[in-house]
């Protein structure tokens, strides 16, 4: 790596920044269906990206059965689109590979540059193929049926392709020739980064890209529409939350349920600790193990299965009903799941049934970490069982308890939706509707995307604020952060 840089190389390095950004944009184009430059007809599925277009011909022509039969579109046109898209995928892949090589040594750079150049030429050539196909499809005798569209992203990607060709050609002259005995080499810092990059891309796509969806909060969006500026409504949906009486009523009710159930959860958060303390008071190790193993089982079944369990125990012809009927206490079976009473308490009980054994494990481990000699000393001093529990075990567990408590305070708005979704029915829906479930029902069930995006957005922001707050409190009290 002892290549001293000439001024030409420095210019080349600067040009590389532009080239890499251009390549990145091309790669993004490859995967976003909304920007698909090969979507030249309304009959092509809206969800197809350039990548999927080039991947599967059968999905591409899914909507064209009738048009082929009636001769509105010639199959050769679609084959041209498919071949072009496929080659474009390869071209963009070549660009990306060339871009990656550009962080290597001189020899790598030169090779990478040629590969980018070839890839870009292929890409631009394929764009012309798609242009020709569009020309053919635009002359269809039935434009209403075939819906020719000039794809939005076409010119953008065309320009990027041409820019890449020009820049790569310049680089050919700027990049110095590698010495004959040079090997392909790359600094390990870039090697490592290139290996990390695909995973970072996944994080970007699945964790950061959804933030782009926040724009729906500012539009009048209905499922299936495309967003356009004339649907921009500013803060209308935010105001809806505080102005529309029906929505306000819903939100207040939902927030009441959410906070109540979270509060019940927090109020009972000492139960796993008590569970662990009393469990460790048992002398019989085998029984202790037995209890520990079997009380953690419910944690590993899904909420659907918990509901199935509830169903077989508490429904009209379930265990409790059949026992009561057989004993003659009840005349007929009662479906206890179909009652709107004490919903919060019931949900809390199911949560405890599922989670207490599991949550206790962390405390059990902490108890085994407490110095035995403390107990012995206390016993010698005449402390009874409860005094030892209260003055030695509990203080030993408080730090763990505090961390978990702060975390649950930070998560006060997110109590998940699985549990409430499976237990919800017509009789208890008023008391069981928590925020997550409400958002799901309203957004995905009823298609009110804009309003629910606003709620999702506010919830995310409040949650992060709460987390920071909890973290700050933790730092203040314990001198340690929890995140």
């Amino acid at each position, binding site marked *: 790596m002892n290549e001293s840089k000439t001024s030409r190389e420095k210019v080349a390095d600067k040009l590389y920044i532009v080239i890499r950004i251009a390549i990145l944009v091309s790669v993004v184009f490859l995967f976003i*269906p909304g920007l698909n430059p090969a979507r030249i007809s309304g009959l092509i599925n809206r969800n197809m990206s350039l990548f999927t277009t080039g991947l599967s011909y059968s999905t591409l022509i899914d909507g064209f059965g009738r048009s082929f039969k009636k001769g509105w579109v010639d199959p050769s046109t679609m084959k041209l689109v498919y071949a072009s898209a496929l080659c474009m995928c390869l071209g963009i892949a070549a660009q990306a590979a060339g871009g990656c090589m550009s962080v290597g040594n001189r020899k790598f750079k030169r090779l990478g540059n040629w590969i980018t150049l070839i890839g870009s030429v292929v890409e631009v050539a394929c764009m012309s193929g798609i242009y020709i196909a569009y020309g053919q499809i635009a002359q269809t005798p039935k434009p209403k049926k075939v819906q020719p569209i000039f794809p939005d992203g076409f010119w953008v990607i065309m320009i990027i392709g041409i820019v890449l060709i020009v820049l790569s050609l310049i680089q050919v002259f700027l990049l110095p020739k590698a010495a004959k005995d040079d090997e392909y080499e790359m600094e390990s810092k870039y090697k490592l980064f290139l290996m990390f990059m695909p995973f970072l891309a996944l*994080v970007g796509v699945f964790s950061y890209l959804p933030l782009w969806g926040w724009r729906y909060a500012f539009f009048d969006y209905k499922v299936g529409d495309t967003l356009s500026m004339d649907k921009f409504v500013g803060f209308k949906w935010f105001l809806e939350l505080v102005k529309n009486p029906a929505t306000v009523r819903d939100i207040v009710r939902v927030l009441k349920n959410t906070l109540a159930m979270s509060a019940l959860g927090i109020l009972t958060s000492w139960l796993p600790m008590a569970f662990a303390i*009393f469990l460790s*008071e*048992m002398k019989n190790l085998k029984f202790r193990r*037995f209890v520990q*193993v079997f009380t953690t089982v419910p944690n*590993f079944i899904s909420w*659907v299965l918990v509901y199935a369990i509830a169903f077989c125990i508490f429904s009209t012809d379930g265990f409790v009903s059949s026992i009561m009927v057989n004993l003659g206490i009840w005349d007929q079976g009662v479906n206890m799941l179909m009652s709107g009473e004490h919903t919060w308490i019931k949900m809390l009980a199911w949560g405890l049934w599922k989670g207490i054994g599991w949550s206790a494990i962390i405390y059990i481990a902490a108890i085994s970490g407490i110095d035995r000699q403390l107990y012995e000393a206390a016993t010698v001093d005449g402390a009874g069982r409860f005094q030892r529990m209260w003055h030695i075990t509990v203080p030993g567990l408080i730090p763990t308890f505090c961390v978990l408590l702060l975390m649950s305070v930070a998560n006060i708005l997110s109590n998940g939706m*699985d549990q409430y979704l499976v237990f919800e029915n017509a009789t208890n829906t008023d008391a069981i509707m928590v925020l997550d479930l409400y958002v799901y029902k309203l957004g995905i069930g009823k298609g009110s995307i804009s309003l629910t995006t606003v709620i999702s957005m506010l919830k995310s922001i409040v949650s992060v604020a709460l987390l920071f707050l909890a973290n700050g409190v933790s730092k203040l009290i314990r001198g340690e952060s929890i995140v």
Partner: protein
Amino acid sequence: MAKTAQEKADLKAEKLYQKKHKKKFKATPGDIVFNIINYAVFGLFTLACIFPFYYLFINTISDNDLVIKGVINFIPRGLNLDNYKALLNVSDLSNAFIVSISRTILGTALMVLASGFVGYLVTKQEMWGRKFWYRFLVITMYFNAGLIPWFMNMQMLGLTNTFWAYIIPGIVAPYNIILVKTYIESIPAELEESAQMDGATYITVFRKIIWPLSKPILATIAIFGAVGNWNSFTDSLMLMQSAPELYTLQHRLYIYLNQASNLSALMESGGQVSEAALKSALSGKVIKYTISMVTVIPILIVYPFMQRYFEEGIMLGAVKG
């Protein structure tokens, strides 16, 4: 492991001490009452955790007529496996079973591979922009855009109604990556350095040294990942709306259970229920139990063997916190 003489002596002294004190402190009546209550409470709660599974099971293997009469409560009668055989004919279910199994295997395998590899990469201080990219990754644990933006994103990417929606988003799991990273950092650096002296590349070091040495942690995250994949049903519910052939087993179970509860809601509210609907609902009850059993069996089978890993898993999380 050989114990030193000192340790042995300590151990002996402690045993003697304990022996002496056991004799000294006899159980008082208060202790006995406490113990009885303690054992009883834990015994009952454990029973409450096991019994439902047992009840479910005996009702699926007993004579259906007896089950419908509601007399199978503690002891199975008229043992048969007809219900399980009947399930084989429900094509929805076998399909859902295959979907669940494949997503569990493929999703878990890719997640573990990725977590292992990325966990290794982020321990490398020399990576370009390591700190920044690591934060970029970890922040996503604490912040998300929300349910609806996530859903719209999946739709925009064209992943809805495809099998890949179960797999690809789960490949990079930041929390598991942190666990693996912490574990790898505890492996002596000399092992890796000596290999690198011999000219091994990062990939070789990962394959030959890091991967085999991190097996305990990888097993732990694999088990958690597998249970999570097997249990998840909201993704199936939201993303597969127009692809019923891709429903997971949990989703199917949810649908079957709901059919029953709708019917009983109708009965409760005094609505007219036809004789035929009632009858099919009743024998449907056994079918529902059987489907639940099929859904829970993989967990119950795997659980006893994997208990150790589960507990290790929660402890690892605690250490990190």
